[in-house]
């Protein structure tokens, strides 16, 4: 089992979600987050006072996948989340030790 975390542009979220559903990924957790990597922020001016806004709104997707689905999921996200500009985000993969469904205590990939 792998955990996939993807931080993407909010404008790409709907397409990414639909594309993931098409390859059979049903479950995911989505958070509205703020952050930045190499992308520079922008300045805002309120009554002459300038503010640099460098933490930009992003969407974070989290899902735990059976090993067989991981590479297809990564490809799908790469394809649908890319705009080609700085600020498109990142994907992080990490190994997951165990998964447990709270309702019936199923374990491992059955719990996904």
């Amino acid at each position, binding site marked *: 089992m792998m955990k996939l975390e993807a931080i993407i542009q909010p404008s790409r979220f709907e397409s990414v979600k639909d594309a993931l559903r098409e390859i059979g990924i049903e479950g995911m957790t989505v958070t509205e987050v703020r952050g930045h990597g190499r992308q520079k922020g922008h300045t*805002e*001016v*309120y*009554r*002459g*006072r300038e*503010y*640099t806004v460098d933490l930009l709104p992003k969407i974070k997707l989290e899902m735990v996948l059976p090993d067989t689905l991981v590479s297809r999921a990564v490809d799908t996200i790469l394809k649908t989340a890319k705009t080609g500009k700085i600020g498109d985000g990142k994907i992080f993969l990490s190994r997951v030790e165990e998964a447990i469904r709270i309702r019936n205590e199923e374990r491992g990939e059955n719990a996904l």
Partner: protein
Amino acid sequence: MKCVGWKCSGSLVLVLAAILVAAVSLSAQQPPASTATPASSPATPEIPKALSDRLAQLEKDVKAAQSAGDNAWMLVSTALVLMMTGPGLALFYGGLVRRKNTLAIMMQSFALMALITILWALVGYSLCFGGSGPVIGSFEHAFLRGVGADPNPDYAGTIPQATFMVYQLMFAIITPALITGATAERMKFSGTVLFLTLWFLVVYAPLAHMVWGKGGFLNAAGGKFPCLDFAGGTVVHISSGVSALVCALYMGKRVGYPKQPMPPHSLVLSFIGACLLWVGWFGFNAGSALAASSLATSAFVATHFATAAAALGWSAAEWLKNGRASALGAISGAVAGLVAITPASGFVGPMPALAIGLIAGVLCYLMVTKVKAIFGYDDALDAFGVHGAGGTIGALLTGVFAQQVINPIFGSGKAVGGLDGHWSQVGNQLVGVLIAWGIALVGTIVLLKITDLIVGVRVPEEHEIEGLDITQHGEEAYNLES
């Protein structure tokens, strides 16, 4: 029964109407100096008693009709001016603060709606409009004694004095509320309540009496220095704006200012608030005619035109400077225009109104963006930059642009403003401005000191960081999880 009576007296009414029409057209043709009119000739004893009774009745009915019209407009205006404080100003200021201080700033405006109303009933109205002293009113109308259905001919001869009283109350509410823009995000609620109560009694009441009260020495009609202030440039905007500056200097900067970003938390709220202010201001300025008259229309038009020009002026200045015109800039410019036209609204036509608005829009933009940065004071929501500066500009420009064709306040045919040929009016305006500045400066310093000694004016630093909503009121504006 009524119909039968009407038919019976039908012929009498016809005769009467013919006489009235003849009298009106004759007197209209006569020059006012002539005394040889048929109405004043000794032929009157011929009119039978029934006819003269009927005439008296008609005269009464005409007066009642005028009073009904004026009163309707003044009651609407009264409600419009209250709408400027809540929700207008509360939303305008509420959107400009950070989210943790939203309820606190709104609550300050709302508290004044209740507090000043009570003070007004006890002594406030009387101190502003009772008696005929040069500096302050009297206790003549304390507890609203003698304020009822009968008009007070000293102020508004066609509406119940109670209407005039409640209309003026709404001005007394918004004026101290404007000051809270400078003390925003760091003043104690208890300190705000005490300070603004004292401020209303010590600064607002005398100034309102001097400028608008019978016998007041700045009163445009008969004062020693006749200062033109149609709707409150000195009484409302200079007084609150200059006091706001004193408050900002006395209290010091907010924690983190100017290094830490403090952008407005919701310009949507501010936008709605500013639009409500624009609409409410028609009650403020056009209502100050105190009648549903052509002067009210003139003030309405001037108000609207100046506001539009000021919104454009601020936006254009911003566009030139930053390459973009912002929504906050446009609405701030509109408020600056509303402030500046306030004293002039009943004295100028639409073209001078455009000029006043444009000048105020650009100058207030410079006040808020440049002057504030140079001096470094933390007038959090620019109460001084907009109301103090805009009020001063408006008061002085009123002396330049006032026209006797709009409002012959010094008597028919007599020049009013500088461009009319009466340049010394600018001097009178300057006297009014200086006195308003002086009272606001001195009064505010003394009252802040007193407030500081009794309850304190500023919240502790950790409360300021946590936010005034929680620390002063025990609640939050946005409980997104509930």
